[in-house]
């Protein structure tokens, strides 16, 4: 096989700590959003009904096999087939259907309440472009991370730039596809401060498995403060090392694909890097966010995340890579 082996993509253990044990961080069963809550309750109830049905079938099966002659004769009638196969399912299924439609209706009501989408998420191979619209209508471009204010319904406009993706943050809500030529709107409301994880759910080729993201829920004031910071231009390089790092960034042509607002880098093909250092992860929740990861990513990204659209850069002179990585890490 001619394929090269990727080195281990890793979610940082530090992040693991921050997520409080981590298990369930992407689980529909540990819901923290309104819709996910409703769905989980529906799951428990419908699941219990189904389990009861299974037990019923098994009991009849065992009786049919092992019951007394009288019980077996009672089972072996057309009436059993009609009541068990027709009446029972019609009653149970109608109930479940009505309940499910009510849940669906509740979701629609939340969407109506949330109003116009204030966040646009664009599916890309294989990362997420996230565009916030702040209260003054300015667009704030970020990537691979969705920040939400606590307890508010927020509508997300979901579109794609290339193939079909599906936005799925299980703790918040169910998934919704991103389809070329269409715009879908998903309304989410997170009721817990903290971090959860999501992932592309529709197979989108190549690195589909490595197209994840984090959802960070902040109290309202913190959210606003964060959004204001995110909207600002990048901090100018403070130290000599950072200045050298910026120079390497410019000379290496990184600006052809990436934007760092406040500098001449205005590329739009790759993720906006203006505040990349403040994000939870690199490469769509594939690597921890630290200087070392930047360096690994720049040189070895085709092993870490095969087929991603960034070419590897390896033609640095001694020390250049480190300064570049440190500069990117400083973009908080």
């Amino acid at each position, binding site marked *: 096989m*001619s*394929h090269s082996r*990727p080195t*281990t*993509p*890793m979610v940082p253990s530090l992040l*693991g700590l921050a997520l409080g044990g*981590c*298990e*369930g*961080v*992407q*689980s529909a069963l540990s819901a923290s959003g309104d*819709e*996910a809550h409703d*769905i989980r309750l*529906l*799951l428990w109830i*419908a699941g219990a009904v189904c*389990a009861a049905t*299974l037990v019923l*079938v098994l009991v009849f*099966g065992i009786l049919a*096999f092992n*019951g007394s002659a009288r019980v077996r004769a009672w*089972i*072996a009638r057309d009436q*059993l*087939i*009609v009541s*068990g*196969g027709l009446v029972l399912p019609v009653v149970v*299924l109608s109930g*479940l*259907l009505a309940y*499910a*439609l009510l849940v*669906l209706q509740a979701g629609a009501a939340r969407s109506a309440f949330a109003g116009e989408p204030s966040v646009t998420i664009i599916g890309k191979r294989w990362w997420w472009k996230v565009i916030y619209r702040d209260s003054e209508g300015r667009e704030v471009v970020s990537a691979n991370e969705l920040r939400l204010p606590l307890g508010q319904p927020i509508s997300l406009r979901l579109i794609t730039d*290339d*193939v*079909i993706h*599906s936005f799925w943050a*299980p703790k918040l809500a*169910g*998934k*919704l*596809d991103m389809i*070329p*030529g269409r715009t879908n709107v998903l309304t989410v409301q997170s009721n817990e401060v903290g971090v959860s994880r999501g*992932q592309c*759910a*529709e*197979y*989108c*080729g*190549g690195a*589909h*498995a*490595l197209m994840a993201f984090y959802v960070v829920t902040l109290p309202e004031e913190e959210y606003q403060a964060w959004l204001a910071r995110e909207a600002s231009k990048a901090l100018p390089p403070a130290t000599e090392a950072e200045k050298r790092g910026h120079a390497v960034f410019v000379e290496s042509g990184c600006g052809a694909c990436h934007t760092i607002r406040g500098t001449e880098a205005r590329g739009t093909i790759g993720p906006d890097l203006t505040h990349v250092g403040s994000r939870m992860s690199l490469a769509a929740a594939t690597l921890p966010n630290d200087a070392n990861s930047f360096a690994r990513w720049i040189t070895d990204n085709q092993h870490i995340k*095969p087929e991603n659209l960034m070419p590897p850069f390896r033609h640095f002179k001694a020390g250049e890579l480190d300064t570049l990585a440190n500069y990117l890490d400083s973009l908080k």
Partner: protein
Amino acid sequence: MTASSDRRLPNPTPRPDDERDQLERIWSTPKGWRILSAVNNTAVGVAYIGGAFLFFLMAGVLALVMRTQLSVPENQFLDQDLYNQIFTVHGTTMMFLFAVPAIEALGVLLLPQMLAARDLPFPRLSAFAIWAYMIGGLVFFSTIFYDLAPKGGWFMYPPLTLTEYSPGHNADFWLLGIGFIEISAIAGAVEIVVGTLKTRPPGMSLARMPIFAWSMLIFAGMIMFAFPAVILATMLLEIERSFGWPFFTAAKGGDPLLWQHLFWFFGHPEVYIIFLPAAGLVSMIVPTMARHRLVGYNLIVVALIATGFFSFGLWVHHMFTTGIPALSLGFFSAASMAVAIPSGIQVFSWIATMAAARERFRITTASLFVLGFLFIFTIGGLTGVLVALVPLDFQLHDSYFVVAHFHYVLVGGMVFPLFATFYYWITMVSRNQLSERVGRWVFWLMFLGFNIAFLPMHWTGLSGMPRRIWTYPPSLGWDGLNMISTVGAFILAAGVLLFVVDLLRRFRPGQRENENPWGAGTLEWLPADVYSTRSIPRVSSREPLWDQPGLAEDVEAGHYYLPNAPTGGRETIVTSPVEAEPEYIIRMPGNGWGHVWAAIFTAACFLLLTVKVVVPALICALLAIASCIAWAWQLDHGPGKEPVEIGGGIKLPTYMSGPSSHSWWAMSVLILVAASLYVAFAFSYLYLWLVSPQVWAPHGSPPLPTPSWAIGTALLLALGTAIIVVANRLLPAPGRRDIRGVLLLFLAAACLAAAGLVELFVHWNSGLRPTANAYGAMVYMASALNLQVAFAVLIMAGFTVARAFVGRVDRERRVTFDNTLMLFVYGVAQTLLGLILVHGFPRAVG
């Protein structure tokens, strides 16, 4: 009533000694490598099921490779690209190269025996389909070994699978593989519809038909309406990939969701296409093991029909997360739940039959697999109810929960009944039975392994693991569950391996020694040889072997119908579709090479086209057509033989044309398939208009040609129809040679082709181009579909002319002529519909 007093046998007197030798000689299977030319259903049926099982094993190995990769997080065993290829090939192979062909194989193998027919009515068609499928399937599967395998998932959603995002031939190989299964599925549908409706034994009215035959009839009916959608979809995708007609490109007015609609309009019925016959098998095994007739036979038949019907109303439940309107969500959710009801009826029917068992329900390996099926399938059905609830589906869709669900449905609903079938019916084709002792191990390993592998996946999915990912980070709560699933997969595989070992030890081709080991009641357990049963019984119940004493002996002694071969060749009785009264003797073709070459050249043509080697591909296409002609040349033998006596004073003709003939029925099935295809096209046209009215004529594209062009084209079609009416009258009397009629037939076919070409010409002249936008693509696609039919009609008309030239077409020997005429009439209707759609619709809405 005693066994002897009330028996009025058709042929009560002892039969001559040499009759059996004659039957054996006529039906003998060629030896050595010449066995490739065999067409007898037992010979090709075994090859068919063997091929399908081989694909099951190979795709199963791929599953183990994937499970190994997923056993621990961040595993380096496979790389991303290979994993993406493997899951695509696993799914595609299991669905298209294993499940559907395995069911068709069982149809080919078991149906003639259950119907006590000597063979299915089109044995060479079956053989052709099998060889094309084997060659195409093996080439498709082998792409995994040289990095050429498709990697878009088994449902290949565009735009991911368009050239822009999937350059190279990988996706084309997927389309190739599907092409073969489309051919063999349609061939199978023709065979099975005509087989079940026309070759039942006298007296087996529809109400006495075995449930398996019912399920196969519905299976074939569903193929007729479901497969055309995917045939169209694959045509559109390959055309967009090769020539850039933008059916699925949103920027040019296409829509990726069109693919999803077409694919799932096929894909959902496909699940029931696989499941219904398997349920039919269970309905055969349960009564035998209970020694009691099936309780609720009528309800089961209704349930089967209802399932087939409902299954066409559910396809959108694969698209709940695409953002479709709430009203559609509600409708398709309700429909998806409704389909659970017929399955419930079947489950309770089987339970009731078990309860009705004389003494106790017998536990054999076959019945263990049936019980395992009941358990697993019930769970799969219930989780199906969960995914049919729209809000739940938002979470469960495309997660490992769905992976668990459909494996419960498909492995439970199809693989377990298939293994039950292996254990139950193995003596149809092997002298030895499989070991019951080993069978217990096989069952428990498979049953436990399956549940250990797939039950945890429900939680894996709820914990957020999407399907189709080759790696995952640790500590998301998925690690332990995945490891358990992998262990279970290997236990399941150990069970299958043990089965294979036992099969290799015990399988000895040939006829069984113990005629009816399970004491079953249906006709496949009659004493049989290569020619099937010695004579064809008249049946008066659903379980004739239980209710008609002495039946087996009388059949074997030749006391029933057609104990010999009065025409000197292969033949069986054709009966009426509802009451099964004898109508005529069908003379069937024997072993031959034409269909084998046709299969080889068809496969070669498709393969060469896939790798874009066009000229050799066209040569192969011509050779394939030539082989088909050589094969068909021997058919339509005409009424040369006198009517023959089959016993009981019944004298039957040996040739039939018109609506009673098997050929008329087969042509009708084919026309229904073509019509379904065109309806799917019309749907696609209207759907794209709904999505992108802005690219439609006259505003978004060059205005339509003036109406006079459409009218002129319609007149051309009318002229062709008038010509064919005259042609029909000019057919010569039997024994005379007169080619005026068939020449007119050819002229009419030329009118049809000319009408298609005129359409093409006027649109090209109006400035419209197929690559410009979705509207242009659809307009040219209409012509492409019309010309496709016209091309077939032209070839058939040419063939008819050639036959008339040597005096093989006349007023009585006219099946070749009739078939061409039928397809011509259909072609006219389709082309007219196309004219209304293409010329009328934009004017009506513009």
